[in-house]
């Protein structure tokens, strides 16, 4: 159940990111070019964190499967 929630949150977050990037080219550039392109750095750090968290969730699910398995035996 917990994993389901995490996955749902993640999909929601990705959807939000996608919909915000689905703007026209100019507004996208305008958004990222403000204040010396610092927003690009934030996006890069965000991607790294999201990627590592997704992998963490994957590992988390593996461990809970193992736990379930060890309870059965």
């Amino acid at each position, binding site marked *: 159940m917990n994993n389901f929630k995490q996955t749902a949150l993640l999909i929601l977050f990705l959807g939000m990111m996608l919909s915000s990037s689905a703007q026209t080219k100019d507004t996208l*550039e305008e958004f*990222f*070019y403000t*204040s*010396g*392109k*610092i927003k*690009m*750095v934030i*996006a*890069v*750090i965000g*991607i*790294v964190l999201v*990627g*590592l968290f997704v*992998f963490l969730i994957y*590992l988390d699910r*593996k*461990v809970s499967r*193992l736990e379930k*398995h*060890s309870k059965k*035996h």
Partner: protein
Amino acid sequence: MMMNNWLKLACIGLLGYVLVFSLYVPLVPGGLHVDTEKIRPGVNEFVFTGYNTHFLSERKSLQVLIMSGNTTYCGEVVSVSDNAHVSTRVVLPDTLPSTTITFFVNNDVDGTLSVFSAIDMSSFVFAEGYKKGSCEMAVSNNEHIGFGFPFQHKLYEGIRNLMFHVPMWFTMFFLMIMSFAYGMKCLRGTKNNNVVVQFDNTDISHNEKLLRFDRKSADYAKVGLVFCMLGLITGSIWARFTWGDWWTSDPQLNGALAVFIAYSAYLILRSSTLDPEKRARLSAIYNIFAFVMMVILLMIMPRFYDSMHPGKGGNPAFNSYDLDSSLRAVFYPAVIGWILLGYWIYALKNRISNLTHKCHEQL
């Protein structure tokens, strides 16, 4: 295999330092742009825009001049609205020595800033008989005061990505080298399958030891692939807002994608073979191919072709021109910190694989 607690602490400390300093250290002052598209003989007025500059607080020592060829023309500071904008008036003659023009601003704190831009200069005559500019900059210091990351045109704050995008590849390299090493270890001892050996202070069969090497090799490759993917995505974002496109046909980019695909194929190959011993040998052999491909595509090829990546196109990646000492102070800890994090994730992954293996044995 458990990871040493000191290493975990070092990883957290290093990455904390990197996160704070890579975002906290300011950029050094630089010239952004000049708001004019055309300059003509006679009086020109324009606004020079700077970045992280101190025009207002250093109003007294502020100087503006224009340089064309080897002669300079003095600008007169009209007004300074804030620290980043200075309005200037400059009187230019009919004849200039060169078709290019550079704008300079100097003050005691920011040093000398320049903007070189493609400006319409069609109303000038370019000839030898130009009137020499009589302007001399009374420069007390050419260099800015204070510590900061270098200011580079088009890159701006994006230079901070160096601490996040580049170490992804270093980490991937580390993990793939380890994967290769364990693949080799696995291949080296495929004989004498039933000899009992000591491993981690327990007696296990030789065969079981090989399978452990195989699991290590696979886990290193899997975590390495995660870092490869992160490197590709972050690189794509960086490229979009610096070079102007999500993907460019740069040898470094295409090579990285090919490596990603090669290692994805490694995982597919593994999942297609059910017999564990056969899988261990097959994937170790394929690992050699993928590893050699990675070295060729990411280390050797980009040096022979022109690349937009700095330090490529005939040069080694690390040369003294690319990395400023302020960047080094954060970049090296970043590389070590990210590699430690990659190893930590691998160690977790490997413990889980070993447990899964044990569970399957009990069935």
